[in-house]
């Protein structure tokens, strides 16, 4: 049982390049989330999904797109990377069966640098 995994672990991009971050979970969770973590700001929600084929905007969605084609995967895309997107990205998943307070399980993170 791997939990939540993220690919890649590290990436360096040049401004204007595109990339996709992959999140996979093997816990059969309905809900999945993408966060970014910046120094002194905690984690901020980018996008989330409440089920296969659904996505919704979080707190800081601009410059990102997401897709949830399979229940176990949640992809985060950067179409044209900017230095402001330099950050550590975390994926998380949860099951709604326990109510709104159910635990979110986090992946190990992807450190992205945009030059």
């Amino acid at each position, binding site marked *: 049982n791997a939990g939540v995994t993220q690919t890649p672990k590290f990436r360096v991009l040049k401004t204007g390049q595109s990339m996709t971050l992959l999140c996979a979970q093997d816990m059969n969770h309905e809900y999945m989330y993408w966060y970014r973590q910046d120094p002194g700001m905690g*984690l901020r929600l980018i996008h989330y999904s409440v089920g296969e084929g659904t996505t919704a905007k979080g707190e800081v969605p601009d410059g990102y797109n997401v897709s949830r084609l399979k229940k176990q995967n949640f992809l985060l895309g950067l179409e044209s990377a900017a230095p402001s997107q330099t950050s550590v990205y975390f994926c998380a998943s949860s099951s709604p069966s326990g109510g709104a307070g159910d*635990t979110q399980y986090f992946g190990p993170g992807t450190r992205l640098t945009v030059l």
Partner: protein
Amino acid sequence: AQSVTQPDIHITVSEGASLELRCNYSYGATPYLFWYVQSPGQGLQLLLKYFSGDTLVQGIKGFEAEFKRSQSSFNLRKPSVHWSDAAEYFCAVVADSSYKLIFGSGTRLLVRP
């Protein structure tokens, strides 16, 4: 809008000393509250959570937290800190009736030998 404040950016304690990390939230109804820990280079791990009922919540690794509605606080405590507790700690609240977490900015704990 919901918000979470962790007033201490850094805290340094000696190994074996007690610890209290502060968390204040802004939320109209009964909140769902969480404490997560992040070790260097790692993801976040849940320490404990509060939904309702007993206001003193026990978590993993010997941590506990107390919900005080009158003070809008959910402070994390540990009676005796170990060097392995050095990490960053995040308090979080569920936003509205959704499943979205709102995080505080974190408190970095340093442990002196």
